[in-house]
């Protein structure tokens, strides 16, 4: 070992290359994009709800990145169109997630817009789907003898309802649901939006070309 300098320079150069191509260049590309037209900044309640989403760690089981038709049948599942970079413009930190233990939530506000459903489901997922493995979040709710004016009472089937009194949602639960209801990504994606469409699109395009060539012969 007597050539420390060239070794160190090479190592740094490799690191710099990787940083340039994996961090700086994409950062510039995405930074120039700005928010997708049609995407609104979070309202105050939605922003609070997002904080609840982050602190509850929903990300560990739910992704927020529907894939394109070429990669997965996400659109058919009702999970929405493939997302583009601009869709996350107001997300810091983003909640892309990698696990799909539960369904993708990017477009949940279009698919399950009901506040009532969301509250019941957060209080006790098993009240709706007996097989659900999602944890219940009873501590986002309060057991009261009687609902006060302005309280949102959670609708529950007899098997899960308390024997007396009612279950009402705490502010955190209401905010979280407001955030989920606002997750609507059905607006048309910008034509120059960045996204990974995989190789199947190329295959489809090539197929079209060969079909056209065959038809013209």
């Amino acid at each position, binding site marked *: 070992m007597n050539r420390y300098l060239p070794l160190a320079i090479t190592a740094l150069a490799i690191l710099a290359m990787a940083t340039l191509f994996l961090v700086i260049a994409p950062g510039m590309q995405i930074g120039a994009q700005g928010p997708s037209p049609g995407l609104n900044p979070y309202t105050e309640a939605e922003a609070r709800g997002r904080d609840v989403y982050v602190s509850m760690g929903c990300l560990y089981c739910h992704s927020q990145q529907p894939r*394109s*038709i070429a990669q997965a*049948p996400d*659109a*058919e*599942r*009702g999970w*929405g*169109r493939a997302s583009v970079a601009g869709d996350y413009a107001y997300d810091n930190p983003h909640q892309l997630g990698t696990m799909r233990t539960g369904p993708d939530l990017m*477009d949940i506000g*279009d*698919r*399950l*817009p*009901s*506040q*009532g*459903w969301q509250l*019941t489901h957060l209080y006790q997922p098993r*009240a*709706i*789907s007996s097989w659900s493995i999602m944890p219940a979040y009873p501590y986002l709710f309060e057991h009261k003898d009687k609902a006060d004016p302005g309280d949102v*009472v959670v*609708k*529950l*089937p*007899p098997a899960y*309802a308390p024997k007396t009194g009612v279950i009402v949602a705490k502010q955190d639960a209401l905010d979280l649901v407001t955030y989920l209801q606002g997750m609507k990504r*059905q607006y*048309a*994606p*910008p*034509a*120059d*939006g*960045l*996204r990974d*469409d*995989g*190789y199947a*699109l*190329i295959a489809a*395009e090539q197929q079209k070309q060969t079909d056209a060539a065959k038809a013209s012969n």
Partner: protein
Amino acid sequence: MMSDKMKKDPRLPDETFEPFEETRRIPLPVYWIAIALAIWGVFMLVETSHSTQVADKARAQLDKQEQTKTAQVSAPDPAAGKALFSDNCATCHGDAGEGVAGAFPPLHGSDVVKLGGAQAVTEIVMRGIGGPLNVNGESYDGEMPAFGSVLSDKEISEIASYVATGLNDGTKTISASEVADIRKVSGDMDPWNGGAELAGLINGLPAQPDAKTPAAKGPDAKLVAQLVNEGTDTVWSCASCHGEKGEGLETVPRLAGLPAAYLVKQLHDFQKGARFNDSMAYVAKGLSDREIIDLANYYAGMSSPSGATPSLQGDLKRGAQLAKEGDWSIGVPACFTCHGPSGIGVAPEFPGIAAQQPSYVAHQLAMWAGGARHNSPLGLMAGISKALSDADRRSVADYLASLPPVPGSKPADMVAMTTSASAAKESSNDQ
């Protein structure tokens, strides 16, 4: 000391010796591999950038569709009008607007068109029409869907101008901005109530039959509105998922205008577990038989604009082919043979599928193919769904989403308490 001693011993290796290697040339194959890797890298870079270009094109097209919907170009183009007519109107009124005796009135030589011109055609296309109507002395009593929510002002102006001047010998066309003015006034109104209401629009229209008065709202109207908008202590409101106007969204289906008997059967099937959906099973279990019938009648009678847009990147041409002609090479009959012209449904068994949410349709077809939805009479849809490929399912779903919505059912097709009790029994016999 030790080392000195050992150094002196010639049999032992020299401890201070540094191993050393002459610089040797890097073997040629290594260069080849490096060059090949670099070329491959460049090639992949070009390939993948091609991938985003393809997607850009697809998205640009989506954008264009969105724009043409709102674009305002005047001077209607007669060739475009003819093409739009055969895409949108010919399934019912015939290729040359000749009509079908007793079912669909003619447009060629129709006194309605002759007297009302492009203006009246626009009004009818925008709002749709249902109920008793006399055309050229023949009486009709059908339902025509409202195209206002699926055709742009420009498209309607081209169709109306073509019907007035191409199919008939009128001279006056209508411009997109005039159509826009009509849309502002009547875009949201219910369909024309037969010839009686039309007579107020068109001067000198020959005598028209009396309009049917819409069924009086039952005493339960308030209870139904409560269920729809607020729900009960245990059940969420229908509108919170199915939309204010029953138009649906994504995997939540459009309910407006589906046959009442069909809706009753589906709700009973969710209740009994014959059709699976956790959310709807929960809802249906919380409803009484009476409530189910009232809700079914409420949604069946609803006329509301389309809430669907093609969103699955399906091939609309292929979708139109499957819907109108079917594809015998894979054994699929035309969807419209059962689901009615233009997919508006045939009460009581065949639900309307026009303007249904595309994600919902594709999802249901996939569920029939996989066996998860198996409550259909005679398994008709299962066989069809299995024959369709993944891409076909998306294509037909997207095409259906581009159609004008199913109009509200006639009072005659509503379900009464007694008939539905027996209908429920029948459907339990199916199982």
